């Protein structure tokens, strides 16, 4: 049995007061009611720090980039105090040959670092997947330290206590699974028999990543919807919490990305905003400590947390291939639309 969170905190010289403040903070972050604070404190006092294995497949590593920018809790806090990150190709201090050599030793029948971790924390570790899994060419499109990612995905899932698909690539396949999908990439749920928690987003909001990991560390699997997405972060459409919603309801829309209406901050629905169909927390949590989110910065949401969103282009039109009044206007140049002469997007 490893050390509990509280023990770790004490060792680090963190006062009880600071500790309670922290507990209150993360309670809010996980979307729990204030009445849950005592339970969070209790969990922090009794649960041991949870071991995490974090794998990277076909991806841009943007999810990790997002993760390390988490503000509440700081990613460093999470990494150093709240979980023990046992294996991660990009974040661990050990790197290069020394770190990956162990992987090759596994092939040679020797016990490598990863095997040691799995042995030691059997059925207790969280396995986080980042990136899609290429199945084409027997998985040769993604090989890390001599092992194909495809094998790792299946093997390591066996003894995991919880599986998290981090980001759109591991949740839905992501950009490499977009048409024509040359590497035949799929999301990890296609390969793993156990239930996988999906945290989609390209990338997911930093606090959503840390919040989900924390929830599992303290209380186990969070409540999820039918597609395995934690309800506290993916229960609402962006549209439902968007601050531009009054303009939508009033029927005041931006027609072109730089028109008068755009300067007034009207709703981006007509220039293809995917807010009405995308489930994510951008509208309420926003990004990077609540600074902004794409819609606030004037760009329509492209639905990055949505299944197969790459194939739903063009991003600046509402529904692909569906006839709208705009499609008539755009047909002929210099043609003036009789019904709305001023508002034809492409004039």
């Amino acid at each position, binding site marked *: 049995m490893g050390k509990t969170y509280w023990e770790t905190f004490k060792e680090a010289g963190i006062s009880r007061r600071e500790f309670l403040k922290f507990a209150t903070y993360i309670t809010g972050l996980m979307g729990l009611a204030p009445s849950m604070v005592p339970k969070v404190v209790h969990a922090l006092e009794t649960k041991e720090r949870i071991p995490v294995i974090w794998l990277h497949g076909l991806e841009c590593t943007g999810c990790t980039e997002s993760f390390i920018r988490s503000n509440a809790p700081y990613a460093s806090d999470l990494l150093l105090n709240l979980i023990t990150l046992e294996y991660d190709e990009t974040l661990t201090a050990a790197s290069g040959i020394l770190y990956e050599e162990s992987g090759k030793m596994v092939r040679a029948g020797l016990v490598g670092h990863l095997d040691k971790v799995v042995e030691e924390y059997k059925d207790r570790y969280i396995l986080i997947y980042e990136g899609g899994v290429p199945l084409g060419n027997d998985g040769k499109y993604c090989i890390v330290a001599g092992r194909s990612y495809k094998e790792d995905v299946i093997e390591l899932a066996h003894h995991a206590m919880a599986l998290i698909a981090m980001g759109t690539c591991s949740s839905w396949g992501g950009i490499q699974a977009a048409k024509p999908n040359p590497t035949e990439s799929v999301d990890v749920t296609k390969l793993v028999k156990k239930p996988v928690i999906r945290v989609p987003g390209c990338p997911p909001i930093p606090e959503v990543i840390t919040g989900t990991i924390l929830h599992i560390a303290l209380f186990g699997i969070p409540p999820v919807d*039918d597609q395995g997405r934690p309800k506290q972060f993916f229960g609402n459409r962006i549209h439902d919490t968007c601050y531009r919603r009054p303009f939508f309801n009033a029927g005041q829309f931006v027609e072109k990305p730089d028109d008068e209406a755009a300067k007034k901050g009207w709703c981006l629905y007509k220039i293809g905003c995917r807010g009405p169909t995308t489930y994510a927390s951008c509208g309420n949590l926003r990004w990077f400590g609540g600074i902004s989110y794409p819609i606030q910065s004037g760009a329509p949401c492209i639905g990055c947390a949505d299944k197969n969103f790459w194939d739903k282009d063009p991003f600046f039109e509402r529904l692909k291939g569906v006839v709208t009044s705009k499609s008539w206007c755009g047909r002929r140049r210099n043609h003036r639309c009789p019904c709305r002469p001023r508002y034809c997007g492409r004039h």
Partner: protein
Amino acid sequence: MVANVVKKAFYRFYLFQPGLRIWHWIQFLAILVLFITGLYIGDPFFIGSIGWEANDAYAHVLSMDLIRLIHFAAGYILLFAFLYRIFLMFTKKSHFSLLIPKFWKPWFWKGIIEVLLFYAFIKKSHLPLIRNPLARIAYVFVLLLIFFEIWTGFAMYGLSDPSGFWAKFVSNWTLAFFGSEYELHFWHHVVAWVIAIFVIVHVYMVFFNDFIAKEGELSSMTAGVKYFPEGHLPEDCDDVASQKECKKLREQS
């Protein structure tokens, strides 16, 4: 000289009780409203609120909010109309059996060909049928499409209240089934157009039959009855009357 009055005997078939006729016209109105408001939701092509503050526009003009409200209200009407139609199936024989494409009957296949030739102005008449096979297929098809619109519509509608009734029982698995809500919107929109095309063809066919076949097609959905001249007993007589009655009539002629 053309006679002003002709004495002729008819078979008079009572097809639809008032309930069904009222259902048909309520459904028609609901779909009309749904289609128009739906198209506006899909592409808000007029903006009635220039120069208003969002708050005032909200309350005073034909805003998106109001149009969506009308769409959802008509959606509820359509839902209950649909459920009522299912209930009606148990109230009268013809309410049910006229909807069945009876592909195991010989007249069904013969009817398809004859009706097609009739519609193409190649044949002057087709074998007498209360409801022809093409219409049977079309009605089942359109009822399924309407069901699809109700299903996808309420799935989208439900998710604005994630712990409500629709979200619990409809939305979540529907979303998982379609992959994402974008697809839901897409198919809801496409099927809306398919229904619109059905209505155009349907109305054309109704008037065509009323004017050319002269069997009281239109009156069937207003007065509930259809007429067939003596000697032209419809093949699907037993969808409305009992087998015994039909047999008797057939022997008489």
